[in-house]
C-alpha cells in the first residue's frame, strides 16, 4: 500500500532563494498524507509546522514515540516527554511509546516512509555527511543519524546549497566523514531541489538561480526537469 496522495498547494516558484521556513514548507508539501516520518534535530523540525492538521502524517521521534505532537507550550511542558533534540513536545491521539531498541528497530527495519535530515555535504551518489566536520579537535557525536540514513525508505536532506563562504555542499564526493553511503534520495535547498538516483542528480525546482548558474557553481553533473 502507498501513502494516500494529499492535495497540496505548491510553493510558487520564486525568483528569490528560499528561507528555511520556505524550504520546510516545500518539504511538507512533498510528504504524502498518512506517511510515517522522522524529522531530524535542527532545521528539519520546522517541517512539522507546515504539515496540514488533516495530513494524517505521523511523526516518529527516535527516543521512543510515534504520533508526536507540536512543541509544548508554557504549562504543557512535561520533563518525561521530549523529542530527539530534548525539546519538550506533546502527544497526539493514537500515540505510542516504546523503548530505544524497539524505536531503532523501527528505523533500521525500513518502516519509516521518510526521514528529513540536515547535512554538511551530499555527494552525487547520494552519500551523506552530517555528523562530523572531520576537524582534528572536534568531538565526534553521531546520535541516531547513521541509523536514520540507512533505515528510512526515503531520505530527504534539508540544507543550504552553499556554505557561508560559498563552498558547494552538493559535491562529487564528500570530504567530510560519511554518515551513510548512497542513502539520500532528495535534497531540498534554498536554491534548488535535487533528486538523486540511478539517473544521477536531477534538478526539479530552482529558486532565484538559473540552471546555467547552478551548473556553473556546482561540480556535480546535473540534469534538469522539463520546463526549467
Amino acid at each position, binding site marked *: 500500500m502507498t501513502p*494516500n496522495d494529499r492535495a497540496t498547494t505548491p510553493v510558487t516558484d520564486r525568483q528569490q532563494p528560499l528561507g528555511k521556513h520556505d524550504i520546510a514548507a516545500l518539504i511538507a508539501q512533498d510528504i504524502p498524507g498518512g506517511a510515517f516520518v522522522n524529522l531530524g534535530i535542527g532545521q528539519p523540525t520546522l517541517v512539522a509546522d507546515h504539515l496540514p492538521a488533516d495530513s494524517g502524517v*505521523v511523526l516518529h521521534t527516535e527516543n521512543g514515540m*510515534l504520533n508526536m505532537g507540536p512543541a509544548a507550550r508554557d504549562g504543557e511542558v512535561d520533563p518525561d516527554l521530549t523529542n530527539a533534540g530534548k525539546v519538550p513536545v506533546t502527544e497526539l491521539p*493514537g500515540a*505510542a511509546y516504546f523503548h530505544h531498541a524497539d524505536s*531503532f528497530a523501527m528505523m533500521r*527495519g525500513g518502516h519509516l516512509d521518510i526521514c528529513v535530515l540536515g547535512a554538511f555535504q551530499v555527494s552525487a551518489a547520494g552519500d551523506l555527511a552530517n555528523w562530523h566536520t572531520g576537524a582534528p579537535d572536534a568531538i565526534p557525536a553521531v546520535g541516531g543519524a547513521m541509523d536514520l540514513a540507512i533505515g528510512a525508505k526515503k531520505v530527504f536532506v534539508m540544507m543550504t546549497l552553499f556554505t557561508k563562504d560559498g563552498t558547494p555542499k552538493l559535491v562529487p564526493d564528500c570530504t567530510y566523514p560519511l554518515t551513510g553511503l548512497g542513502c539520500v534520495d532528495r535534497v531540498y535547498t534554498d536554491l534548488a531541489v535535487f533528486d538523486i538516483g540511478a539517473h544521477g542528480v536531477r534538478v526539479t525546482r530552482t529558486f532565484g538561480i538559473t540552471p546555467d548558474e547552478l551548473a556553473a557553481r556546482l561540480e556535480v553533473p546535473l540534469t534538469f526537469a522539463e520546463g526549467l
Partner: protein
Amino acid sequence: MTTRLCATPDEAVAGIEDGSTVLVGGFGMAGMPVELIDALIRQGATDLTVVSNNAGNGDTGLAALLAKRRVRKVICSFPRQADSWVFDDLYRTGRIELEVVPQGNLAERMRAAGAGIGAFYCPTGAGTLLAEGKETREIDGRTYVLEYPIKGDVALIGAHRADRMGNLVYRKTARNFGPVMATAATTVIAQVHEVVETGALDPETVVTPSIYVDRIVQEAGPR
C-alpha cells in the same frame, strides 16, 4: 502507510499472491487469526510458505489450508501434535516441505527481519541436527550458529483491540507471536476482538504501533 479498517476478513486478505510467505500468529488457539485463515482459504492463494509455531490442529484453520494443498512449505517449531493429522499425513507422504526451527530462533529470526538485522549469532541448537550445515563461530569460548532473518510477504495475526489508526493491544498469552510478526511482513493484517476510536488506547500500553499494521478487521464470530 495509513491503516485500513476492513468490513470483512475477505476484504482484509484480498490480494495475497500465490507463492507468498505468510506469517501466521497464534500459539495453539491463543492469538490464532481464525477468521483471516478461513478467508485466505476462500481467497484461494496457493503455493504458500506458512511460518507459524505449529502446523495446524484438527481439521480447521491452518489444517484446512494445508488440506486444500495450498501450502508448499511449513516453517515452524512444533508441527507434531496430538491432532496434527492433516500435516502428519502430508509430511509422511512427501507432499509438504518442513523446516523445523527452534521456537526462539523462529521468533528472533522474524524480529531480525523487522529490525533490519542481516544475520545473528545465536547459541541455540549449536552441535545439534538443526544447526547442521550452518555457519558457526566461537565467541568468548562459546559456540554460536549464524541465523538469517525470516521475512513475510504477509502476516495474519490476532489481537485484542485496535484503534482506528491501527495501534494494537493484545490479551494475556494470546500476545505471543503477533507483535513480532507485525514487524516482519510487508503487509500486516490483524483480526481483532474490538475496534475502538483513536485515542481510546493508552499510548503507554500500545504493544504494536500503527506503523506496522496495514489492515484491521473486527471479528464477526463470538469469542
